[in-house]
């Protein structure tokens, strides 16, 4: 074990030049993921959470590009690598699990061949060994009768089973980081619970770092060790999951938690965040959240929102929510 985080992102910015303006879907993001840790990235659609994931794995679609900052994987910079070098890292060092398991598997190729293809490309092993490992990988993700089903096509599996195959695919080259982009959004709750338990167990056993991107606060609460809340391309709040979700300091996190229905709250009226997330081309001056923020003051409208480092390392806010519980805990 070393002290170097598996993934370290420093002041990452992504830009999309358009005819009218340069859009910044990701703006000065900084975060680390340690070995065996699950970082949840949560935010509403358009917050830029998938963009950060794609930037890390080098899958930004042109014209989007990294315009500033650094991405360090195990202490080595990967944001300035060539396409060829990045290809070697993708799949080998960083695995990816996408939302829709049907579209992330090739429907014309048996799943076994898709698994062995990845291993043959990245690992120094022969075809027979790869097949053996593929069966072991399928077995590990809980596919019953792996040896018989390895030559099945993706359509022969149910949605949950397909997502297991995708996870096996992401983990088969034993990467140190897995980016899971909404891995359970397309699945039913009971299957979602299975997939989450699987992801967690695999990471704990192998020490894989996971970046779990989702919009579901419940999934984050149960799965992640730390959570990063994104709003309009910026990090709003980051910290241990129990602190951030239990005692939010950023007004946006507080609003998000209030507007999520929970069984324990019964029929209480839901807290409403007024308005909607601004479009990237029309970000308000100052802190991007101020038009919807109940605590906004004059300096919020004037000065651009601070980064998390500039504050207490947690909430990127000039006037964080003073929470008596937190003070007591500190």
């Amino acid at each position, binding site marked *: 074990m070393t002290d170097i985080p598996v993934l370290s992102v420093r002041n990452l910015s992504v830009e999309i030049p358009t005819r009218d303006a340069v859009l910044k879907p990701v703006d000065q993001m900084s975060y680390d993921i340690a070995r065996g840790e699950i970082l949840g990235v949560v935010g509403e*659609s358009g917050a830029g959470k998938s963009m950060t994931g794609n930037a890390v794995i080098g899958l930004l679609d042109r014209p989007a590009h990294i315009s500033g900052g650094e991405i360090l994987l195990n202490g080595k910079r990967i944001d300035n690598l060539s396409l060829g070098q990045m290809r070697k890292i993708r799949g080998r060092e960083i695995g990816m699990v996408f939302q829709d398991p049907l579209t992330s598997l090739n429907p014309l190729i048996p799943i076994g061949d898709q698994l062995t293809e990845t291993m043959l490309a990245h690992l120094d092993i022969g075809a027979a060994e790869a097949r053996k490992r593929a069966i072991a990988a399928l077995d590990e993700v809980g596919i019953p009768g792996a040896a018989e089903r390895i030559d099945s096509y993706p359509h022969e599996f149910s949605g949950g089973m397909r997502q297991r195959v995708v996870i096996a695919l992401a983990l088969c080259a034993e990467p140190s980081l897995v980016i899971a982009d909404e891995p359970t959004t397309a699945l039913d709750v009971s299957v*979602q619970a*299975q997939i*989450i*338990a699987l992801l967690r167990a695999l990471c704990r056993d192998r020490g894989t770092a996971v970046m779990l991107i989702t919009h579901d*606060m419940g999934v984050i609460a149960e799965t992640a060790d730390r959570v990063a809340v994104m709003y309009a391309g910026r990090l709003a709040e980051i910290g241990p999951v129990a602190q951030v979700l239990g005692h939010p300091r950023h007004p946006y996190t507080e609003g998000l938690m209030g507007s*999520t*229905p929970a069984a*324990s709250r019964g029929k209480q009226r*839901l807290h409403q965040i007024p308005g909607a997330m601004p479009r990237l081309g029309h970000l308000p001056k100052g802190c991007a959240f101020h038009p919807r923020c109940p605590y906004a003051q004059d300096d919020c409208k004037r000065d651009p929102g601070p980064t998390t480092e500039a504050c207490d390392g947690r909430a990127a806010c000039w006037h964080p929510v003073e929470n008596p519980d937190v003070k007591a805990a500190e």
Partner: protein
Amino acid sequence: MTALVTVRDLTRRFDVSKPWLNRVIERLPKRKLVAVSKVSFDIEEGTTYALVGESGSGKSTIGKMLVGLLDPSEGAVEIEGVNLDTEPDAAKIDAVRSDIQMIFQDPYASLNPRWKVRDIIVEPVAARGGDTEGMAEKLLEQVGLSADDAKKFPHEFSGGQRQRICIARALASEPKFIVCDEPTSALDVSVQAQVLNLMSDLKEDFGLTYLFISHDLTVVTHMADTVGVLYLGRLVEEASPEHLNARPAHPYTQMLLDSAPRLDGFGREIAPPQGEIPDPINPPAGCAFNPRCPLAIDRCRTERPELRQIDGARVACHRAEEAIAQYSPPE
């Protein structure tokens, strides 16, 4: 209180056979998928009845049969005492039809992109030759948009605003009963909160009755007066949401509650539920849940349980008493 909607032994089968020629050449039998099987429930006037279930449980099919988009294979739907399927008097059918409206899941697919918002909203009334002067503007303000929005096209709105337009359209014909099929699943949480609050307000203001279809137990708990849990086209449990959360009687309901992620469940370790929903073309004999049920006995594998009354809830389970006794709510 009177029941506005009465559903009795509702069943819907879909023909999923191969084409005729394939069947003859390959000697395949006809195949029937039973999407909804003998479902009965009542919806009291002015209440919200929620149907909750995983994909393939038949919840949307029931919604469609209630508004008349699908015909039932067996059983009956009565709305205001009129069976739309068998009623001979066209005028009666027409009167009831205008009392029913529907809100769909995807607000991007349920608004015609070539129509202006005004035309979309007033269509349910205009199609019957009603007076639509100023109606769209008034409805838009009621759902929290501005009267000027009537001149715009759907693409100028965000998902949440579009869902408000869908709600305005549903309200135009002054219905009594609205079927909401996953109205917020396509929306972000903060927008979902706005739409759910709006729906609660409108229910109070207009005295509406909702059938609320959702896969999300927490949303259902928040909105509903009565919850019906569906599994593979069968109603397995019906209770008030408070009762359901505190004392679920059906093992499937218990499984759903256990596996739903909880906002305060930091690092919660649960034994995830086993198995998946079986193939609805060949459902298991007896209780449909028996292959996944921890309490299943031989009787569950042969005899389909009927809904029966157990302390304030209706449950379709042979072993409901044992299930209640051994259930401990998640910490």
